[in-house]
């Protein structure tokens, strides 16, 4: 009682909104820094990716910011190309997941009776199917490339997206404005594009941001197992795998990609959180 009474009425609102932006800002800074590394890697790298002129496992310092790997390649160069691969994997997977997931989800939402049941069951199975196993199957069929990894991760994630979209669309379809649009003669495709998707967008985009983080982790996992981008592409997962045996003598090789991986995933998760609070009017209203 005393607490509620003494609390200033306006302060929480300011506090909350500034916290909201703080989440978003910190997230953007973290992910932005790594995005910057990735962008710079497109035009400039400290060393060529196949330059093996450095010594074996030289520590940080000298001409090499983070030292070199077994073959004498610069670790910072690999880290930069690795961040590019992380973004390619994240964006690629999310694109696949979004395209497939939204289509499937909308279809499932409109489906009736047995078709609805079948689609739901299919999505549940796809969700339960381990990403790793799916990836192995795809890699076996297409050989290990970044594309195969992206396809596998995107496929696995599309099920999650589809299930969410199905629920959201079903909810929106019961709204009066949909009935209004339909009675005014708007076709279903136009209704979906003009009324349904814009209304589920806030929740969807937050989910896609979270999926991005998961995709980056999944790609690192696949590369660690040798199922991702083939060598000499310096994926963070591959760097971790290669540095594992030399961790006691040259820890930088494992620490650097590990730390960046954590930072990127935390970054996009913070962005997702920030977006959720800013975009979703329901949350905003409830909290305020």
């Amino acid at each position, binding site marked *: 009682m005393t607490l509620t009474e003494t609390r200033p009425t306006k302060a929480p609102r300011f506090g909350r909104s500034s916290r909201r932006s703080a989440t978003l800002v910190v997230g953007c800074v973290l992910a932005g820094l790594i995005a910057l590394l990735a962008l710079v890697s497109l035009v400039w790298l400290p060393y060529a990716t*196949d*330059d*093996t002129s450095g010594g*074996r*496992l030289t520590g940080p310092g000298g001409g090499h910011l983070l030292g070199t790997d*077994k*073959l*004498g390649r610069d670790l910072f160069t690999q880290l930069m190309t690795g961040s590019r691969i992380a973004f390619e994997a994240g964006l690629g997977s999310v694109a696949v997941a979004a395209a497939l997931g939204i289509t499937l989800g909308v279809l499932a939402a409109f489906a009736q009776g047995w078709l609805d049941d079948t689609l739901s069951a299919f999505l549940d199975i796809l969700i339960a199917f381990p990403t790793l196993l799916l990836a192995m199957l795809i890699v*076996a069929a297409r*050989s*290990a490339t970044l594309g195969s990894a992206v396809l596998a991760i995107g496929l696995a994630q599309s099920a999650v997206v589809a299930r969410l979209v199905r629920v959201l669309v079903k909810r929106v379809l019961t709204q009066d404005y949909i009935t209004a649009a339909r009675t005014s003669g708007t076709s279903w495709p136009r209704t979906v594009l003009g009324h349904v998707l814009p209304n589920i967008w806030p929740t969807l985009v937050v989910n896609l941001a979270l999926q991005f983080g998961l995709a980056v982790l999944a790609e690192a996992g696949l590369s660690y*197992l*040798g*199922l991702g981008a*083939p*060598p*000499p592409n310096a994926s963070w997962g*591959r760097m971790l*795998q*290669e540095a*594992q*045996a*030399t*961790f*006691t*003598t*040259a820890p930088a090789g494992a620490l650097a990609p590990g730390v960046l991986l954590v930072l990127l995933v935390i970054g996009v998760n913070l962005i997702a959180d920030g977006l959720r609070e800013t975009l979703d009017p329901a949350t905003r209203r409830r909290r305020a």
Partner: protein
Amino acid sequence: MNAKKTSLYGTATVATLALTLTACGGSGSGGSASGGSYDKNATVNIGSLYEPQNLDNTAGGGQGVTEALNGNVYEGLFKLTDDGKVEKLLAQDYKVSGEGLTYTFTLRDGVKFHSGKQLTSADVKYSLEKVIADDSQSARKSNLEVVKDIATPDTRTVKVTLSQKSISFVYNLSYVWIINSQAKSLKTTEDGTGPYTLDKWTRGSALSLDRFPGYWGNAASNKQVVFHYYKDATALNNALLTNAVDVVTSEQSPDALDQFKSNQNYKVNDGNSTTKLLLAFNDKAKPFTDVKVRQAVSAAIDDKKLLESIWGGYGKPIGSMVPPSDPWYEDLTKVNAYDPARAKKLLAEAGYAKGFAFTLDTPNYDPHPTTATFIKSQLAKVGITVTINTITPDEWYTKVYKNHDFTATLQEHVNDRDLVWYGNPDFYWGYDDKQVTQWVKEAEEASTTAEQTALLKKVNEKTAKDAASDWLYLYPQIVVAGSKLSGYPLNGLNSQFYAYDIKKG
């Protein structure tokens, strides 16, 4: 993930496959520091990465079963010593008939199986037939198919007739375990004549052996041996650091060794191995059909730098398929040695002045991906573009080994005396040279080892000159043990690990 001396195929997962075509090297006499007083009733804990698939070496037991049971639980008519020599074991004596086709073996007297049964010639016949049976997955099956007839005139005599002369016959016999002909369920139990009996095998963790009181020879110098199995090298090294194991049979990375080298409680032994890392060309696929292209690629890769990168200061450069422990070894590292200028010249002569591109099928475990990366960067300097295609060991077996559907690949070849595969035009690398095939055949039918050695030296030189494959380096064999331990094998030229001489101070 580890470079291992598993098999032709590398990882333990496909060790079964390896058995179909690989042979193994010699190992044997104990090494290390001389032990003064020691505990006769000690338990020796051995750390290994290679758990057996089952306990039968003719049923795909893998390299783990050789490591744990060969020489310890099971014995052959002959044994291989640490420097690769063949010695009589259960055979007390043997005679070869004039034309070299009939071998008469006299068995050692008073040898008992662990079940208590006396060793007889019928057991030897049974054991040999088991290895060459249709369903046998033994590494020596194809070598022993020259056996035409096995007769047992009396309980201590075995007479083997061959369909053609085979100078390696006695050597090959050292891989044939003599098993009680009445023994059942050999995949999970044993009945051999060795100095240890199987105590218990806990799948996924350990296999323990107890000293056999009724052993015919000198009793083992320890009471019990326990093989502890680990999934990865880091866990194995940690086990050694915490004294959970006394010795690690073979280290797979040089970087963990510093912690043992700087510690007086441990001894790091650098022995000899027979495992070679190969860049194997498909000699029947363009452009590697051209000798000059193969020579150019070999000359364009700095093997010494690769070895240094992967193994630090360990391992040896190698110029051919023959490791120093084989009798027909010659130092051929100067043949097609690192010389980028010559590589470019050879490429131009072969009509590839502007280089070419090829796909390198790369197994997905160490050291292959790192090696492929290195090769790609080296070959780029002479204008050759390498596309690295990562494949699993199973894919390697089907795509490369069985279907010969590849241009070039990376693979480790574990065995000693495996030069002879270049005499088989149907082998996966497709090296087809009539002269070499003839020499290999003649060498096997030679009457003296001197003759055999001379012929195989010719094969060695010819294949090296032709760059039949590019032999990148010879692995080191590193055994790390507590400094109180002595008598353990140092060379482990194949997966053997004789434990009976190990003394714990």
